[in-house]
């Protein structure tokens, strides 16, 4: 094991912030004590299975469930004939989404639009019976022509997947300045096409749900969701139920990465439970995880860059086509972020972005760690490298020259950048990689060739200003001075519960052990939260609990001031003791118990609601060193440096874990991940972990994590996002390193060993 290399400087005035405290639930998880949704079993619980479409595009002419319904042990069967027909978008969160997100999905439709689309569902006393019942549901399909490729889908003669023209879900276009003028003034023009693949989140824990509908008409959903309140509001809309009658909880969650944001088959589970009048559990197989949850959009990106001889960017143009799969979900929003993060990262007077999000008969693409940014970053950071090479400028230098600076104005979101740690990330990262020395090494031939590459990235902290958002919390102080925190913030395994406990402990002058962040999250008891996505929770959830803790603190200090006969502003809390600065004190427990059980009783409770006014983009630089076996194409990452401007590391250990995990996912994205689809049949070829390769432990290089603290003025203790940025620039850093090693530019992901070997063969034939 490598020693932690944490180059941040801890702030002397903080007692808990900046401490590398292991995740509070780590022991429960490594010992298996922590329970996940699929571990839970309710009395009388039934087992559900979903019948899924075997065809990429078909009309259901007839569906006969009568045989299945008569089977012993079958308690409920649902299909389009016996469920409400309500259109919805699975990513819906708030009223404005009615306009922004097409409601193109139904509980069940009379048409199926991809292999894996839902057709019917059953609940039975055993899983075996449920599986057998699926085989006895007779479905007559009228097979329709299908389309897998977005360019084909946009042609007038293409099959229509939904009732929209050319299968285009959304088009986003932005102009800054005038690109044509910019190109005219440029010394050099660069144009290339880059493509990326359909990656899947592959969380260790598959999606799972339990639904229970009680005699009082209350629906309880236990779900692996990243957003309990999002599930609740959609269920309320679809089932036409008041929100107080729906309770959504979540136990421990085994990874989300954006793949658990939407409403999934919670709705099927709910309907089955209502029909059977018994609790119902549904757990996805790994195959269903791949086919029937969500995937990362595959992008085709055409770039045109105009630059001056000295490397100054004059004009940039991107035309992006996104394959969004069979339903819109969050596709339109991914189209927006794809362009926005790209425009924001570099200063350029003239920019033009067009993004089109297109339906195809393939799995639904929506949120996945980076939300469009990893795709465009592969393209654009490869492009920057191509420009740097042509102009004989060092790749680090050209980025230092063009990146946005502190105080710059982002022309699209209209925000002013309040913290920018890009130079520090580039310089410290280059130092750790020994960049200058390694770039000088001439590739002298031989079988094994080494190279180094760099890439810069950004993303977001939350969703402002494109969407209004909220995180909130209650903090209550118990009669012994210990603290419970109620929040809708969801820990997906990344460790946010520990970070929130640290923030509350810091404010209240207690230790982390004195703070319990209530788990499971529960829509009945916690205030609203928009969910854990968009790298938002340390920033938003952190600020919400900080505000709540501060309100609780002021209640404690008011009481303490009376008891100590001092002024509130002279008081401070340290180590569970309230001091009059430099003199007498009273314990926090005495104050708390006095408030709860005194003459005039009062619950010490603070409320926090945080809705940010801006966004605080994080920045990140990855450096990769690779070695390529030019005879087999086998490529290995031999060293990796990840420098992240995260504003402030509340818990450096957890931050390092986030970055390691991001690099792991980024390496998989670069080299081998991707759902393969047979062009003739529309069937998927690798829906298992044998042939959908994820990065294994032996494929992981040592990763140097550098945390750059740029002190974001709007974040709690200066913090901003980290989760998604952790994988944003990984692929282009590696692709650039491969170019440095063997002189071959890969503009298509994944860069498999086979593609490398093939490219080397072609290169040799040319010579």
């Amino acid at each position, binding site marked *: 094991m490598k020693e932690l290399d944490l180059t941040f400087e801890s702030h002397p005035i903080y007692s808990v912030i900046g401490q590398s405290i292991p995740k509070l639930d780590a022991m429960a998880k490594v010992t298996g004590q922590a329970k996940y949704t699929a571990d839970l079993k309710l009395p009388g619980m039934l087992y559900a299975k979903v019948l899924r479409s075997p065809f990429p595009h078909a009309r259901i002419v007839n569906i006969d469930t009568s045989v299945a319904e008569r089977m012993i042990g079958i308690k409920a069967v649902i299909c389009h004939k016996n469920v409400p027909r309500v259109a919805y978008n699975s990513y819906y969160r708030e009223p404005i989404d009615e306009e922004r997100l097409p409601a193109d999905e139904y509980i069940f439709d009379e048409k199926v639009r991809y292999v894996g689309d839902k057709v019917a569902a059953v609940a039975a006393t055993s899983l075996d019976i449920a599986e057998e019942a699926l085989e006895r549901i007779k479905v007559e399909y009228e097979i329709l022509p299908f389309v897998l490729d977005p360019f084909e889908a946009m042609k007038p003669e293409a099959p229509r997947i939904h009732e929209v023209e050319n299968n285009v879900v959304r088009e986003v276009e932005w102009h800054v300045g005038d690109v044509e003028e910019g190109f005219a003034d440029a010394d050099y023009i660069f144009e290339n096409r880059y493509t990326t693949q359909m990656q899947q989140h592959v969380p260790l824990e598959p999606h799972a749900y339990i639904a229970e509908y009680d005699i009082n008409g209350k629906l309880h959903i236990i779900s692996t969701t990243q957003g309990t309140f999002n599930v609740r509001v959609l269920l309320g809309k679809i089932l036409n139920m008041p929100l107080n009658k729906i309770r959504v909880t979540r136990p421990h969650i085994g990874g989300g990465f954006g793949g658990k944001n939407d409403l999934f088959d919670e709705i099927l589970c709910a309907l089955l439970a209502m029909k059977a009048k018994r609790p119902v559990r549904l757990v996805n197989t790994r195959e269903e995880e791949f086919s029937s949850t969500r995937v990362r959009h595959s992008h085709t990106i055409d770039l045109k860059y105009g630059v001056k001889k000295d490397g100054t960017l004059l004009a940039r143009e991107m035309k992006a086509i996104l394959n969004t799969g069979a339903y819109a979900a969050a596709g339109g929003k991914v189209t927006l972020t794809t362009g926005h993060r790209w425009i924001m990262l570099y200063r350029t007077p003239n920019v033009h972005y067009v993004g089109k999000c297109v339906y195809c008969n393939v799995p639904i693409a929506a949120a996945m760690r980076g939300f469009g940014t990893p795709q465009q970053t592969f393209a654009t950071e490869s492009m920057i490298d191509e420009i740097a090479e042509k102009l004989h400028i060092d790749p680090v230098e050209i980025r230092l020259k063009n990146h946005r600076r502190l105080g710059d104005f982002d022309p699209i979101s209209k925000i002013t950048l309040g913290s920018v740690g890009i130079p520090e990330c580039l310089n410290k990262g280059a130092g750790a990689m020994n960049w200058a020395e390694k770039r000088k090494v001439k590739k002298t031939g031989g079988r094994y060739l080494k190279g180094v590459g760099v890439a810069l990235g950004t993303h977001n902290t939350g969703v402002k200003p494109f969407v209004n958002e909220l995180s909130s919390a209650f903090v209550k102080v118990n009669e012994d001075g210990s603290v419970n925190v109620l929040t809708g913030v969801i820990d997906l395994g990344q460790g946010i519960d520990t970070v929130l406990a640290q923030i509350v402990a810091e404010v209240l002058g207690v230790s982390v052990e004195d703070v319990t962040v209530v788990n499971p999250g529960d829509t009945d008891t916690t205030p609203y939260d928009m969910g854990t996505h968009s790298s938002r929770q340390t920033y938003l959830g952190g600020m919400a609990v900080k505000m709540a803790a501060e309100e609780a603190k002021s209640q404690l200090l008011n009481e303490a001031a009376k008891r100590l006969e001092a002024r509130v502003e002279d008081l401070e809390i340290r180590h569970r003791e309230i001091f009059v600065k430099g003199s007498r004190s009273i314990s926090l427990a005495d104050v708390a118990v006095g408030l709860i059980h005194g003459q005039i009783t009062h619950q010490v409770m603070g409320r926090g609601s945080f809705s940010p006014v801006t966004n605080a983009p994080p920045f990140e630089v990855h450096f990769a060193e690779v070695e390529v076996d030019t005879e*087999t194409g086998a490529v290995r990452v031999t060293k990796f440096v990840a420098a992240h401007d995260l504003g402030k590391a509340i818990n450096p250990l957890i931050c390092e874990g986030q970055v390691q995990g991001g690099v792991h996912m980024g390496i998989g994205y670069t080299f*081998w991940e991707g759902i393969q689809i047979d062009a003739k049949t529309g069937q998927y*070829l690798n829906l298992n972990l044998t*042939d959908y*390769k994820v*990065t*294994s*432990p032996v494929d992981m290089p040592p990763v140097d994590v550098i945390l750059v603290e740029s002190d974001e003025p709007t974040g709690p203790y200066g913090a901003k996002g980290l989760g998604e940025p952790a994988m944003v620039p990984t692929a282009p850093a590696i692709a650039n390193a491969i170019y440095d090693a063997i002189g071959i530019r890969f503009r298509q992901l994944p860069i498999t060993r*086979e593609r490398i*070997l093939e490219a080397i063969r072609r290169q040799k034939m040319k010579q």
Partner: protein
Amino acid sequence: MKNFCYFAPQDLTKVHNLLTKYSGKSSLMAGGTDLMVLIKSKQAIPQYVIDLKRVGLSYIKPMEKGLVIGATTTLHEIESSPLIRERCPVLAATCSEMASYSIRNLGTVGGNLCNASPSADTAPPLIVLGAKVRICDPKGERIIPLEDFFTGPRKTVLRPSEVLTEIEIPNLPSMGKAVYLKSKRNDGMDLALVGVAACLVVDSSRKVCQEAKIALGAVAPTPVRALTAESILRGKVLSDNLIEEAGIKAKETVRPISDVRSSAENRMALVEVLVRDALRQIRTAAL
């Protein structure tokens, strides 16, 4: 997954009785690491599963001029056996490169052979070592060269009443060396895109290859010998040119398929490289 009836008989007679009784409806199981995957994906739907693990076929024993390995010996037992490591290091190395630790604790050598995947890792090294398999049925037994065991993907010469019980591996000649190389999509666990085993007897004083066997996995419906490549090596000095030529010959004689793991062209290119690498490694070790 369809339910099935599970038997764990404790001797071969009972295995044979069950096989006879449930002929056509039963599957033999050793480690289960292949069978359970097939059952879960409904590619196999046996009504009866007969587990061989309690029959007493887990052993590694020296025999006169060689070794014998019981069919249900796990891959981990093989990779960690001092006897195998000393007498048959290529097999220990092969097993240690297979799947994951947890799967190697369950998966068996007999299962790997009887599952008859074209990419089965244990087959090519055992073939070049001249291994034989002992096959028993209620009336008796037969011993055949492993090379003649496979008939197609997931197909072997085993009749429904027969059980593979043992693998016999003769000792290498004193100047013999063997290696197995496998090409994968990543460095972690993966099925072989191409597997190449080579076994040479090299006269180190004259640098002459006296005997050569090369077996290739995952490039044909069964593991296959690279006979042309072998023939050009015999009796010759192991020069760089000869090794390169052997690689090219091996490539020219295979007709692999394209699938989700690799294109045929890639497999052919890898055959050439891996054969060359295997021969170089043996030369380095021998001289």
